[in-house]
């Protein structure tokens, strides 16, 4: 491919990827009700309206709580499982690895429907609660945590931990003082990724909550089905900026702490993780 052809191709792809995000960002600060080209003026009106819309306020709190609980649970369960699968001997390791990746091939609407039926028929109290939604989200997040942390653990040198054990450290101390610092980068990425995935989740969540109190993306979804006005753009813009800021800050903090310089960091794990996804 000639250089110019390649540049044009990359430019077109970049425009295709960024166009829908840019249009949302622009519409949220433009005075036009319907954006048709360049905005005719600048306004903070829609942002103010979005921030004072009760469904979005409730949705934001709801989403943060669900994402925090689901992330905490899946990181703890997932790290423990990954450690057992990639560092210790467990009978049926191959089968168990498949089990932990399997939820990825489960259509989220199917899981959503099932959790809905499960709550409706067995635990009606869980329907629409933060705990109930978070419980369902763990199913989606676990595979990511196990693959990411597992990939981090798989590249580790196990002799360091063994040396610590030989020198008299307990299993827990050896893990905390020797292994944990080495997989910090994987853990951080898994945590951020899990949090954002849970925060943005729609397909499964939409089944689990009554229409008046929902997570933020579901609130946006339900509002979009009724009407499309710049207020929705405004709240969407806040979500775009929020996710980018969070990822940027974490990347920066990680770089400062020297997390990504160690072997077994992001760049090295990316392909491995992707290869494990299709079960």
């Amino acid at each position, binding site marked *: *491919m000639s250089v110019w052809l*390649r540049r044009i*191709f*990359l430019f077109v*792809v*970049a425009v295709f*990827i960024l*166009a*829908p*995000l840019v*249009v*949302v960002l622009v519409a949220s600060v433009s005075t036009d009700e319907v954006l*048709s080209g360049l905005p005719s003026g600048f306004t903070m009106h829609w942002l103010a309206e979005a921030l004072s819309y009760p469904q979005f306020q409730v949705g934001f709190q709801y989403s943060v709580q669900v994402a925090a609980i689901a992330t905490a649970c899946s990181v703890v369960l997932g790290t*423990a*499982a990954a450690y*057992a699968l990639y560092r*210790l001997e*467990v*009978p049926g390791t191959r089968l*168990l690895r498949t089990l*932990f990746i399997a*939820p990825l*091939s*489960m*259509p*989220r*609407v*199917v*899981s959503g*429907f*099932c959790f*809905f*039926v*499960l709550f409706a*028929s067995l635990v009606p109290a869980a329907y629409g609660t933060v705990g109930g939604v978070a419980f369902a989200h*763990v*199913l989606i997040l*676990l595979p990511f945590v196990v693959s990411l942390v597992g990939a981090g653990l798989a590249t580790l040198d196990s002799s360091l931990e063994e040396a610590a054990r030989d020198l008299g450290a307990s299993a827990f101390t050896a893990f905390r003082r020797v292994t944990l610092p080495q997989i910090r980068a994987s853990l951080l990425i898994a945590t951020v990724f899990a949090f954002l995935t849970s*925060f*943005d989740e*729609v*397909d499964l969540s*939409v*089944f689990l909550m009554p229409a008046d109190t929902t997570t933020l*993306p579901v609130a*946006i*979804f339900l509002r*979009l*089905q009724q009407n*499309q006005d710049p207020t929705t*753009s405004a709240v*969407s813009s806040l979500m*775009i900026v929020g*996710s*980018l800021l969070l*990822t940027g800050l974490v990347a920066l903090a990680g770089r400062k702490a020297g997390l990504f310089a160690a072997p077994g960091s992001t760049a090295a794990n990316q*392909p491995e993780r992707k*290869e494990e*996804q*299709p079960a």
Partner: protein
Amino acid sequence: MNTRRRRLGLLLIAPGSAYLLLAFVSIVALLVSYSLRTTQTATLFSTFDAGTWSSALSDSYLWSTVGTTLRVGLIVCVLCVVIAYPLAWSLRAMGRGWRVAAMMFVIFSPILVSVVVRSYGWAMLLRTGGPLGGVLDSWLYHEPGVILALVHVELPFAFFPILAAVRAVPAELGEAAADLGAGAAQRFREVLLPPTVPGLLAGAQLTFTLTISAFATPALLGGGRVSVLAESIYTDIQQLLWPRAAVQAVVLLVLTLLVLAAFGLLGRLVAGRVGTRSAT
């Protein structure tokens, strides 16, 4: 020492496994149980009958929904791979540096943004009076609009496995083939393409399975006119048709497993062919 490691391993893996088994067992049990009823009920066990199955399977609506789901899935999958494949080679050709990093970020960034927001962005671009409304007037609330937005949503999932495969091809391979007198087309077909086929299949498999279960994008951009299984399940629940939703959920799950199996088979076939070729 060994038994202690074993015991610790079991102890660590037990909570996660228990959760997953509980979730999976209940999912399968509930799906089957609810698809074998004819009325919406919250009781877990009542008399079963296959009425919903027979009426759903003889209903042309279900089959047209399955058809739309698979057609959209296939088109999106092909388009994603067709864009992602040259994209991966282009990025590889650029080497390293801030431009590659910037482009990687651009390709990765949609993953950080909610699917609802991205679909809404496309709705704004395509709607009457919108920037693309004049050119692609009839796309919104029709299949092409849904496909366009889904390609945008699933592209990163096709791109990363393909990029990993393309990056793993040693640079000397193409040079050696050129030295031996192979033309550009032959060089690509016989030397550079074969080692990347597994990555290509992985990307295609991921986009296909993700697309057939996509919900938010078809719901927002289809305007009720493009009915895919995922959206149909949701609509049925809104109308309290639980058994019918369960039937469609089973169909979607089976379709997903079939697609996974088909790609698995394809992968083994390709691996077999590459293996025999390098052996001869």
